[in-house]
């Protein structure tokens, strides 16, 4: 169980900004972006007001699951440099308040999405919140190095929810968007964990470099990259993406593979860092390749979804699909 109740209480009063921080606004913005892409790619007429409400509900649902995550993980967040400034471990917000915020926003977002748009989208949103807050946060994260592989499904579902909100269905192309984010997650997070593994080890989180070692993690990053990059080409042949998308996916995919190969050949994650400073994402020299892959992975996924969005909004030609 969470140790948030045992955390020190700050004398500083909770401000509304602290409650906003519980919702992880940066993650919410990524969720909004991928959900809008799913909704636009569905190419179904949806009332723009209802479409905006659907996106708002998806964003609030993501924020609710983040608040539940911060409530439960306060004990391990307090041990890691990257997360110890969060409102609950820092003592600015009580754990019970984060829990209440998460539950209330979950109920509001699911009910509003169901009553205003459709219950398939609402059901998928409910599944995503439960999967992230319960399956990933409470179970997988502390028990297996496959935590972010399986848990990555929660981050991959927003385009499917967006698609379901627009059409009431989830066809193959919607799941294709989900699969791309799902396969992107392991190389992305393992690249990050290669140079933050000391933090995870200190907190007792069984991330892959902590459990299997840096060498095994580098090999698995390469394997997932070899599966992920061809998958990114598939939308160009299913009627989802066009020529521009194919060029971006192929060009970016090659760079992704080169960077993953460099990580594989590097010693990222091997050497212990003698310094103990507080620099967020402070990178040791040996982990430079891992940092490069981590940074490019964000850019690549953003470019893929932005290209799909642009092609559908500008009505650029796409290949025939099914």
């Amino acid at each position: 169980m969470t140790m948030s109740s045992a955390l020190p209480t700050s004398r500083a009063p909770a401000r509304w900004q602290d409650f906003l921080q519980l919702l992880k606004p940066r993650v919410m913005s990524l969720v909004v972006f991928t959900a809008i892409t799913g909704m636009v790619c569905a190419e179904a007429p949806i009332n723009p007001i209802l479409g905006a409400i659907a996106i708002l509900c998806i964003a609030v649902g993501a924020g609710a699951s983040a608040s539940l995550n911060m409530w439960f993980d306060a004990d391990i967040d307090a041990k890691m440099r990257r997360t110890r400034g969060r409102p609950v471990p820092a003592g600015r917000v009580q754990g019970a308040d984060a829990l209440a915020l998460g539950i209330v926003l979950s109920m509001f977002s699911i009910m509003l999405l169901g009553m205003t748009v459709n219950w398939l989208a609402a059901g998928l949103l409910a599944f995503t919140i439960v999967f992230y807050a319960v399956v990933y946060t409470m179970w997988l994260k502390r028990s297996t190095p496959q935590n972010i592989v399986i848990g990555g499904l929660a981050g991959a579902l927003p385009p499917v929810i967006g698609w379901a909100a627009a059409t009431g269905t989830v066809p193959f192309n919607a799941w294709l968007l989900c699969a791309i984010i799902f396969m992107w997650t392991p190389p992305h997070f393992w690249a990050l964990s290669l140079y933050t593994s000391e933090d995870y080890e200190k907190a007792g989180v069984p991330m892959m470099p902590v459990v299997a070692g840096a060498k095994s993690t580098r090999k698995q990053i390469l394997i997932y990259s070899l599966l992920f990059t061809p998958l990114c080409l598939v939308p160009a042949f299913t009627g989802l993406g066009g020529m521009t998308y194919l060029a971006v996916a192929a060009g970016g995919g090659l760079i992704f593979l080169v960077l993953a190969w460099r990580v594989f050949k590097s010693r990222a994650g091997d050497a212990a860092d003698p310094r103990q400073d507080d620099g967020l994402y402070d990178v040791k020299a040996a982990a430079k390749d891992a940092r490069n892959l981590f940074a490019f992975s964000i850019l690549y996924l953003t470019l893929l979804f932005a290209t799909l969005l642009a092609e559908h909004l500008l009505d650029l030609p796409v290949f025939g699909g099914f």
Partner: protein
Amino acid sequence: MSDPQNEGPVDAKARRGRNIALALGLALFMVLVFVVTIVRLGASTANG
């Protein structure tokens, strides 16, 4: 949360900020429900 009867200016300012944020959130929710009702009613009327 502090006791409103015995709080200092910093606590009072923080509480006021939280209350305003909560009020705005509730107002937004009311507006959303109203707008959705109008949109749904409009769609039903248009469909006969």
